């Protein structure tokens, strides 16, 4: 690790001021991602601005209308232990329970989890990578078993094919959560809530971050809306081993059933794109239809629609279909389980 200065911020304003004005400064929350990147020299901040002490952004609050507001500095462990999260947002609870390990969840903040950098082994190692400023993406033609199926547009090496590593983001996407971003200089009343899917961007050479945030922008809150009555949720994650691994593919499903008719279905896929990938076409087809083996087959096929395997990640297509099938089984058939 290169030497750096450290500031334990005492206010959000102070933090934002440094972050927006000082080149080389970097927002530091739980540090579980930033320190690993810094140790490898993937990023070399000169100044860490620690916002962990800002107790004002560490809370769980019920929203009027039934949703939940989560302060961005809430740790994953705190969320995991929360009963409301378990009862009302089991997909989120599950996605957190399979994120890293207890020790990581004790430190990791939910804001940091959304803003973490890709786990791509080209990016985090001494390999060609657009995000290092190199001309090509090493993974596009290399060992891309863990890389994207969707959204990267072109595999010519000019586009980053890394996937967003977050599990909670996938559940939050299926729950149609929003994030509130504090922009430097803006009064809190002007902070806007944006749909979580819009927080993410495909990292590029010039903007190697996974989010659209500018220096000084801080995610301050995540809002999870109340889900329709009787909705059922599941989060399934396929890994290379039973724990402590990033998703090969994951699926968050939120279904609302009216008898045996699917009134609403939301399907978000993890491990397949630079952001949680909503299977919108599959969701549309499902809406309003009676659950049948044919419908399930159709949803499964549509979930993988447009998949562009890179080579070594070919297997993600059947894997994704299999997980979607199991997720559908879990949310539509109480008696069967996964």
């Amino acid at each position, binding site marked *: 690790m290169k030497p750096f200065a450290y500031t334990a911020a005492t206010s959000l304003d102070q933090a934002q001021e440094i972050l927006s004005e000082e080149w080389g400064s970097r927002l530091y929350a739980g540090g579980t991602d930033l320190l690993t990147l810094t140790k490898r020299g993937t990023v070399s901040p000169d100044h860490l601005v620690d916002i962990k002490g800002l107790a004002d952004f560490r809370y769980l609050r019920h929203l009027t209308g039934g949703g939940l507001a989560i302060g961005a500095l809430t740790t994953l462990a705190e969320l995991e232990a929360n009963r409301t999260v378990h009862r009302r947002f089991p997909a989120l609870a599950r996605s957190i329970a399979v994120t890293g390990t207890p020790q990581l969840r004790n430190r990791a903040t939910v804001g940091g989890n959304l803003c973490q950098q890709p786990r791509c082994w080209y990016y985090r190692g001494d*390999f*060609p990578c657009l995000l290092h400023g190199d001309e090509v993406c090493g993974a596009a033609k*290399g*060992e891309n078993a863990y890389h994207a199926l969707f959204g990267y547009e072109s595999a010519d090496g000019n586009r980053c094919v890394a996937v967003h590593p977050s599990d909670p983001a996938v559940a939050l996407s299926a729950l149609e959560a929003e994030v509130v971003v504090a922009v430097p200089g803006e009064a809190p009343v002007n902070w806007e809530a944006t749909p979580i899917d819009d927080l993410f961007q495909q990292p590029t050479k010039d903007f190697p971050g996974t989010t659209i945030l500018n220096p000084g922008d801080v995610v301050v809150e995540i809002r999870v809306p109340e889900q329709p009555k009787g909705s059922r949720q599941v989060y399934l994650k*396929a890994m290379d081993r039973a*724990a402590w691994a990033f998703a090969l593919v994951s699926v968050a499903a939120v279904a609302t059933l009216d008898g045996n008719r699917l009134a609403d279905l939301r399907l978000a896929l993890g491990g397949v794109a630079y952001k949680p990938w909503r299977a919108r076409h599959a969701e549309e087809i499902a809406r309003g239809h009676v659950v049948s083996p044919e419908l399930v087959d159709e949803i499964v096929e549509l979930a993988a629609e447009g998949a562009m395997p890179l080579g070594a990640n070919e297997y993600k297509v*059947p894997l994704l279909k299999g997980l979607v099938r199991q997720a559908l089984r879990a949310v539509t058939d109480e008696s069967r389980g996964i």
Partner: protein
Amino acid sequence: MPELRKTVVEIEGRLHEEYVVVDGEDLPAWPEDRVLSRVGQPLPRVDARAKVTGTARFTHDIQLPGMLHARILRSPHPHARLRRIDVSGALAVPGVLAVLTHENVPELGWPGRPLFDTVLRYQGAEVAAVVAVDEAAATDALDKISVEYEPLPFVVDLEAAVEPDAPRVYPEGNVSADEASVYVRGDTDQGFAEADVVVEANFRTAAQLHNCFETHGSVCSWDGGRLTVWDSTQHVFGVRKTLAQAFGLPMHDVRVIKQFMGGGFGSKGGTGRYTVIAALLARQTGRPVKLLLDRREENLATGHRHNTLQYIKLGARSDGTLTAIYHQVFAGVGAWGWVAPVGGPARELYRCPNVKTEEYAVCLNLGPDSAFRAPGYVEGTVALEGAMDDLAVALGMDPIELRLRNYADTNQPRNLPYSGKGLREAYRIGAELMGWHLRETTGYLPRKRTILATLGGGGNHSPEGEQPPAGPGGVEDLVCWPGTQPEDLPPHRRRGLGMASQIWGGGGGPPAHAEVRVNPDATVTVATGTQDIGTGTRTVLAQVAAEELSIPVEHVRVLLGDTEAGPYGPISAGSLTVASVGPAVRAAAADARRQLVELAASLLDAKVEELILKDGRVEVAGSPERGIALRELTARLGNFMVTGHGSRGPNPEDVAVHTFGAQFAEVEVDLETGAVEVTRIVAVHDSGRIINPLTTSSQVEGGVIQGLGFALSEERAVDPQTGRVLSADLENYRIPTALDVPIIDHVMVPGADLAANNLGAKGVGEPPIIPTAAAVANAVYDALGIRPTDLPLTRPRVLAAIKRLEEAAQAVEAGAESGKEQAGEGGTR
């Protein structure tokens, strides 16, 4: 009179001849029915307290006054020529004392390759070393060394490297036929001609990285002309010898210490280049130097289990009797290294008159390989036992029945009977514990399966040596329809049972020496130059000494891991420690006992032959009143130590000493997601007399778990474009977590191997890892009806197998629809 004798010792599957000084008769082994009260007890480790309180001092934990820290700059390229190196930037970093490169490294008597070469043949090859006041400064300085490399063409893929026009690691080429290990018994051509059934298969296994938790490293300190080294090593005496040679020192001026070690698994058997570098820097600066590798260096440069490409072919008569075995192995050894005996199981496990094995080392621009827990046998067992299951399917025979049909009572390569072989018993116990019979009654696998289709497999890979007879297009894979599945399973899950056998050495041998010192308070110090690498050696040796001296284990302290603590002990490898050092300790304890009894005889005015030593007393047999407590006896001698000496006797000449075992696996495969879940492992091993069942069970579980990693998730990944390793960390190299571990039931086949040595004990360190992957792969075969040939069984491989299965099923359905009769007799569905 001492006499010099030659004896055969097996280490890591290879035979060596050793001279051994024999003085008098070795003790006979404790007979089978002897009631032993210390040996055989499940005692907690004598050093457990140090480990749980954090006071156990590992090499990483050594801190000396004035100690400096060194780091190594390593080649980022898989193959490059070093053109120019400028270290001035590094020397300017505050706190840096010196930088070593090929330009200024002093001449040494070091027998290894140059410490810093100018042709760098793997990513991770040493380029320079920096020593500084702290680790941070040394690390900062590495970045300031400017190096000009001329990148050279490289090859990192095993299949590519055997091609004649592949880039060459050395000008001579990547595969050396001269150094191939070829074994022939009988005539395989004739054997295959006699066969009614022939099966053949290709297998691939991945490079497994040790990932010892304590990385390789040393602390070196000079005191005048003497060198003291704390080293994370499996062989303190080996390191002493090499360092004495490297620095031109008398051996007694080198001391090597290793009290605790965070894992070695075979990778810490030699003398590290980092050790020599640290010693050089310590000499140069006049201060102690600590040099620890980090996780990435560990995974790039300290060894691995070589990856393999294997072709195997079995011929058998219709009753299952093997007529021929042919096994060809290409092993990716890296920039240099050795081919472990991958063909070992094929040569030894089954009775077969016609056997040929060929083992080729293939050089790659990757770090050199090293031994890894049962090197070769783990990989070779996957192929042999996989092919045996193929044969069982082809013959419609139960896999165990087939193995029993070919049971070998003799070691065929050496033409010697086995000293003891509990494999039959292991099959029986294991089958019973696993419920093997369920394979038939619940239809796990019908005895005879319908062969649905044959699909073309990958091409063979044989640039020289025998061409596999399948010819271009390669081996065909059988795809079978598995039987009806148990009713408790959802339709998208398949359950399977599989098993595999284990053969390995583990008989140990000389040289190994020990000293047993009886203190004035009758406590005992055992001193021997072996080491405890986490296997429980301290504890087991204490039990042996306590048994022989009939004293409580708590009264024994074992000094080891220090070349100055005790006489020579061998490398802790090849599962040989208990069977080599244990008998020496027993002999030394017996020598001490003899002296104690003699001293007591004069005190008690009794004849030596009348006296027995029991429960801390020497007394006249039959008249306990004529006795003396050991403690009283030693106290009478004043501040004097009775010292017993002992050494390991030669190995028996008329028998071959081996360990055996069988493991059974139950798996569930998810057809929708390709997940392979191992739900249960049953491990039954025969290692002779068990000195400590508790530490033995730890070895068995640990071996099985490492075997599961090899089977399911552990794989070194290399970027084909840059030739650099992608998985040199613990994130992308996936060792099992606690949640990956199934139920592991294990049993040791009862009985001592009385011919093996004076303990009747054999090694248990390596055997348990040998059959695990093969058993799991066979269970997956049972579950899916298609043989997995590439390990580890990650999602891409399993999902590809499932796809082929579906294609085969579709082909059959299509055939059935068009009215053709398909899929012969006996198939259940």
